[in-house]
């Protein structure tokens, strides 16, 4: 009981001193905005506090540092003054390290740092807890001032709770310092007081805003291009197309994923249809199964899977084994002539991968060749729309070769349909 009474007394004095320090430090510079105080101490401020219009945020223990980061981003001219206890080095330790490391603009007072330094788990000695003595003797100290110094905090200082004037000046100095400042508040008479270290590095959000300003100026023109692309009218009048399912299945490295997106944009943006596109992709290096599904129609597409495709493109034997039966009775299957050995009944065999290598030097355009094949057998998407879509989706240097690959697929499939393809 004695301990508790003593603790209450010490704390009451501390709250009054802190309120005096805040109001005094805030009043040093009339041109500066009043600070916003974030604290983990429910005792601050007293309800009848009638000083300047300083607002208090009483955040969850340790989390005030995170809250202050968002506040600093939103209110660049308002000093963020954090008053924390041991929670700064326990729950808040991770936030603390990163806020200092990023030099985010705020001033953190850690109370009774000589106590919190010694006992990271609790702001007061709980001598009657049996395990506490041993824990205290095993643990190393959490040393926030040394930590902040090593992370090049903008300023690190120590003030005494018994020297209100000096502490107020340290707080004022910290609020005028750009970046993260830490002040250890002690009642230990033996420790050195005043500014312990300084580093002159740019404040995080000041640097961010400066960079963003330059970025906005440099991309002003690009933004107009973005708006125009969205407004582009479909080249064709909306036709009455019932739900039309396309599936392309192969392996990673055949450009299947890109093909799905090119087809989706061609049908959606350039043919004026409603579309969806989804996929499951293997990596190019590992070559796992890769498939895309595009559904298009003149009504909104409610379900993006192609359980019964109208057009099915199979680029390898495994895909053929898995999906050959799924094609709609009225649908069309196209298989790679070299990689699918057992050609399903009614399917057209086109050397898709070979055409990709012939036109681009790599198998990666097999997906684009497939789109040419699809344009040849389906009236949902035209070769012209696919070309526009390729020009939109691919880097300029690859467009010509890919359009050649697209046309090769289209021509080869057309010949097969007429029955006179000779490879």
């Amino acid at each position: 009981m004695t301990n508790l009474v003593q603790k209450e007394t010490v704390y009451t004095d501390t709250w009054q001193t802190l309120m005096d320090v805040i109001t005094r430090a805030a009043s040093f510079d009339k041109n500066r905005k009043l600070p916003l105080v974030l604290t983990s101490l429910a005792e601050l401020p007293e309800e009848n506090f009638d000083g300047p219009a300083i607002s208090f945020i009483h955040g969850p223990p340790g989390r005030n540092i995170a809250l202050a980061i968002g506040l600093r981003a939103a209110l660049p001219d308002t000093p963020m003054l954090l008053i924390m206890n041991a929670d700064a080095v326990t729950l808040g330790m991770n936030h603390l390290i990163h806020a200092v490391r990023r030099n985010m603009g705020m001033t953190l007072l850690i109370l009774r740092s000589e106590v919190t330094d010694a006992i990271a788990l609790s702001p007061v000695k709980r001598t009657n807890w049996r395990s506490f003595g041993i824990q205290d003797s095993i643990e190393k100290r959490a040393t926030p001032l040394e930590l902040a110094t090593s992370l090049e905090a903008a300023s690190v200082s120590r003030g005494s709770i018994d020297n209100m004037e000096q502490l107020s000046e340290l707080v004022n100095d910290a609020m005028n310092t750009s970046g993260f400042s830490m002040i250890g508040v002690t009642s230990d008479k033996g420790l050195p007081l005043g500014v312990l270290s300084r580093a002159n590095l740019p404040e995080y959000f000041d640097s961010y805003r400066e960079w963003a300003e330059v970025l906005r100026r440099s991309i002003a023109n690009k933004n107009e291009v973005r708006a125009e692309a969205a407004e582009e009218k479909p080249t064709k009048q909306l036709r009455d197309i019932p739900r039309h399912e396309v599936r392309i299945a192969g392996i990673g490295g055949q450009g299947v994923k890109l093909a799905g997106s090119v087809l989706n944009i061609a049908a959606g943006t350039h043919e004026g249809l409603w579309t969806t596109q989804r996929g499951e992709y293997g990596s190019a290096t590992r070559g796992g199964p890769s498939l895309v599904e595009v559904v298009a129609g003149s009504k909104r597409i409610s379900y993006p899977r192609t359980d019964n495709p109208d057009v099915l493109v199979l680029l390898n034997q495994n895909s053929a084994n898995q999906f050959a039966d799924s094609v709609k009775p009225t649908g069309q299957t196209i298989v790679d002539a070299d990689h699918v050995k057992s050609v399903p009944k009614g399917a057209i065999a086109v050397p898709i991968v070979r055409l990709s290598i012939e036109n681009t030097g790599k198998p990666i355009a097999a997906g684009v060749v497939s789109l040419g094949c699809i344009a040849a057998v389906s009236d949902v998407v035209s070769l012209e729309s696919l070309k526009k879509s390729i020009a939109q989706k691919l880097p300029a240097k690859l467009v010509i070769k890919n359009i050649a690959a697209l046309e090769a697929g289209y021509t080869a499939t057309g010949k097969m349909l007429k029955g006179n393809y000779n490879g």
Partner: protein
Amino acid sequence: MSKFEVMYGNQAIAEGAIKAGCRFYAGYPITPSTEVAEILSDRLPEVGGVFVQMEDEIASMGAIIGASLGGMKSATATSGPGFSLMQENLGYAVGSEVPCVIINVQRVGPSTGLPTKAAQGDIMQARWGTHGDHPIIALSPGSVQDCYDLTIKAFNFSEKYRTPVIFLADALVSSLEEKIELADDDVEIFDRRKPAESPEDYKAFAFTKGGVVPLATFGEGYRYHVTGLLHDEKGYPTEDSEIVSQWWDHMYSKIEDNLDDILLYEEIELDDADIALVAYGGTAMAATRAVSLAREKGIKLGLLKLQTIWPFPEERVRKLAKDLNNIIVPELNFGQIRSEVERLAAGQSNVTGINKADGNQITPDEILTTIQKLMVAGS
């Protein structure tokens, strides 16, 4: 003239956020939500906003609360593991009535689970993840169009009712690419208003029934106290049970008195239905398809597609249970919404679940098979 654009679900969420006025994003990347962060890291600096990658999801949630108190509409995006870390500060935002949007693109859990696979397992976590009783709003998009439209709604609700809004997407819609219609300039955007009262009379946490007062931006002369402790109308902590009761009335009535505005759902072929599906999120896509396929076979199937998950559309579901003998709830969990439907059906309707959390999607065929079994059992 309408504008259309082909985009992925995560992209539509990011673009919806920009359209809604989101200007601050803090987050930690996690599959399958990462593209939301990636796109906002591009887009926010373009529109005068700020993007920060934080040290973890606890800090992300804290930072968006701070930015919102500073007057910026703010959001974070994550998936299950990160959503678990956000619960502490989420509760703080609920209790201190700070608007913000938390996007959770759900994947299979618990723990790191199946990182790339879709699930709908965080429904109850969205409702009760943070401790203590509390009202909450959660929306779930059933298409890429929904990703865009409902993200705008999420920001509007959060500002209008000064509450965090949880956006429960899933990997089915987030990775889907779809042509969508973009909002024109007439779309409703609820911006933060200035308080009508003078700073002397301003009560930031006024116990208004069925509404909230505008949150003043710090630095504009208004002074108030923000705390996670239960508080009076000025924000000062209190243990006075009368004031605490008034606080609860205010907190619940601001949501419950506005259900007409908050409860969003679509009714698909429900008017003459014999059997109803109740579905949401990515699973609603298969459910919609199942309705078309069933109708082709002459089965009168309808769908109640939920867009608002919390608060739950209790009256609508009660009526559904009264009208129909069979309700089927397909979902990628083991019955989190089904249990709500069962509670409301109160024995008046037979409620059947189709449930999985193995990374696979529920297909229209599975739904039709379940219906056929029910029809055989019923005949």
